[in-house]
């Protein structure tokens, strides 16, 4: 318990470091958020724009302001803390979507990405665990070849090919599903499959790995020698150990899924936050990038923690010091 508490406490400074890294990293790239094809009407206008978002201040000053630890003089002459900032839970205004705060945008898009992510997670497990189990049991035979081939294919074909293929086949030609957008249950099916297939393939491979390893270990032989039925051996003894690598992969897998996939959200035009990570970096929306990095980091750290917790519960041999 001590270990997990320490991990939890450690998350805070770790997140801060990550966020700081992102803060400075994204400001290094050339070009700024307000660079446009058309130049502003006058240098005075350009200056005023930079001032509005404090881009004319030094990096350190901007960083302090971001944290909420910047003190400045009011027109009245007194010293006061600049409003907002991380300590106040304010991630700032998006530099590109200037009428929305970063928190606004994340809170709007996150539920969608979360829903899609969980659905895809469910799909990946529902596809991967049985398939992995099957190919491990049928190892070396046709069932293994076909199953493994399928799993590998979905890993090796890029998502921006699989997505449109699914749309073309099941939505446009067959007409079973809508081609995109979000809101009705039917609209979630194709994106779920498009997103989940890749991870399903990974889960299949990991399960197959784990099962193969488990089936060759000594306690399985013992169980068999003790006369347990094959099914019992497979399900009760081998499967729990086999699932370990999948459990440990679930952490980063969920982190990837829950923060939204650029490709799937772009192709199906789903209003999640997946497209924002890429687009904000490309449009130099500093505040948005930092906000999203923080979200991703927190998610990843929490999920990793949960995974380790699950691990320790599943396998009594595992100990943390």
């Amino acid at each position, binding site marked *: 318990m001590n270990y997990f508490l320490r991990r939890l406490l450690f998350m805070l400074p770790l997140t801060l470091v990550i966020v700081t890294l992102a803060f400075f990293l994204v400001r290094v790239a050339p070009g700024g958020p307000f660079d446009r094809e058309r130049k502003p009407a006058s240098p005075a206008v350009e200056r005023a724009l930079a001032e509005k978002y404090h881009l004319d201040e030094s990096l350190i000053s901007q960083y302090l302001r971001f944290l909420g630890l910047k003190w400045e003089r009011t027109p009245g002459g007194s010293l006061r803390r600049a409003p907002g900032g991380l300590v106040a839970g304010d991630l700032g205004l998006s530099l590109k979507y200037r009428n929305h705060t970063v928190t606004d945008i994340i809170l709007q898009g996150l539920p969608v990405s979360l829903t899609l992510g969980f659905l895809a997670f469910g799909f990946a497990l529902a596809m991967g665990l049985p398939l992995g189990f099957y190919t491990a049991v049928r190892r070396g035979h046709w069932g293994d070849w076909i199953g493994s081939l399928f799993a590998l294919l979905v890993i090796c074909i890029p998502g921006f090919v699989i997505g449109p293929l699914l749309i*073309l086949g099941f939505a446009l030609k067959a007409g079973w599903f809508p081609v995109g957008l979000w809101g009705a249950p039917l609209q979630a099916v194709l994106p779920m499959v498009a997103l989940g297939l890749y991870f399903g393939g990974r889960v299949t491979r990991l399960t197959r790995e784990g099962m193969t390893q488990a089936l060759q270990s000594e306690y399985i032989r013992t169980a068999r020698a003790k006369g347990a039925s094959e099914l019992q051996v497979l399900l009760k003894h081998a499967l729990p150990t086999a699932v370990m690598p999948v459990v440990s992969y679930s952490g980063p897998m969920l982190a990837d899924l829950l923060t939204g996939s650029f490709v799937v959200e772009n192709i199906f035009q789903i209003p999640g936050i997946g497209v924002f990570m890429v687009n904000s970096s490309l449009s130099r929306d500093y505040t948005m990038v930092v906000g999203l990095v923080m979200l991703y980091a927190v998610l990843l750290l929490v999920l990793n923690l949960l995974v380790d917790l699950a691990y320790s519960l599943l396998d009594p041999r595992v100990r943390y010091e």
Partner: protein
Amino acid sequence: MSESKLPQNGPSMVSSISVEAVHLSPNQKTWRRLCANRPALISAAFIALVMLLAIGVPLLSPHDAVHGSDSQFAPPSLAHWFGTDVHGRDVFTRVFAGARISLLVGAVGTVVSLIIGVCWGMIAGYVGGRTDNFMMRFVDILYALPSIVFVIVLITTLEGFVKQWITAISPALAPAGRMMFLFVGLGAVSWLTMARIVRGQVLSLRSRPFVLASQSLGASNRRILFHHILPNVIGIVIVYLTLTVPAIILYESFLSYLGLGIQPPAASLGTLIAEGAAQINPLRVFWWLIVGPGCVLALTLLALNFLGDGLRDAFDPRSS
């Protein structure tokens, strides 16, 4: 991913090894097991074939991968086995010129990630204690940073700078600038998992009897690292090598989809597929633009994965 200890390899079994094989070294045994694995062999042969074609086709083809012609969007024919694209370029030649670049990107990127990852992991695992803690926390931090942010910043910021530097060295190398940059960048993004794995392996090896014996005999740390630990780490590293290459190639295709990939008119398989993806539409499909590159890419990556599987099985003394 966590500090927990994975179930380790048990003591080696004797039962299933023939009398003759007892005299073979572990590496020789590995080689034997590999040869017995049919899919792995087929994959290795396929990869060799692709590499041969990647080198040979652009050299020998009557068509140019770069220069256009007037026959735009011609379907596959005897003159153009994979058809032509928007500029009238022969797709077959482009696919294998692209395969050349993709494999190069994958290989160099992997080597970069290997060098950084192995060194990092070895040092962290061997030295242990505070250094290990610090180094692994650093890896954790980088892990939590979405790679796309890092890559975009890397490409946009340093590319111009690196280009100047390269042109200063040799103007002929300039077009290769972005490419080399991509290799290094992709490698820099993927060394993290390698470091973790190597560190895990080194940690378990560190307390093995042969290492302790070496230490008590007074061998220097460097000797131990390179003579004893490294050879035992090589196995798992090779396995991950063959699995990192496909990951890097796919990531490069994602970057091409975003417009950040190889500089035109050169193209990697990933670029060709990203361009061909636009052909998946209900109105008019120039299918050869996606089927050709798509198949070559998918098959190559499949082969790499199967080979990786085979290698992993071969290195594991318990597989029968």
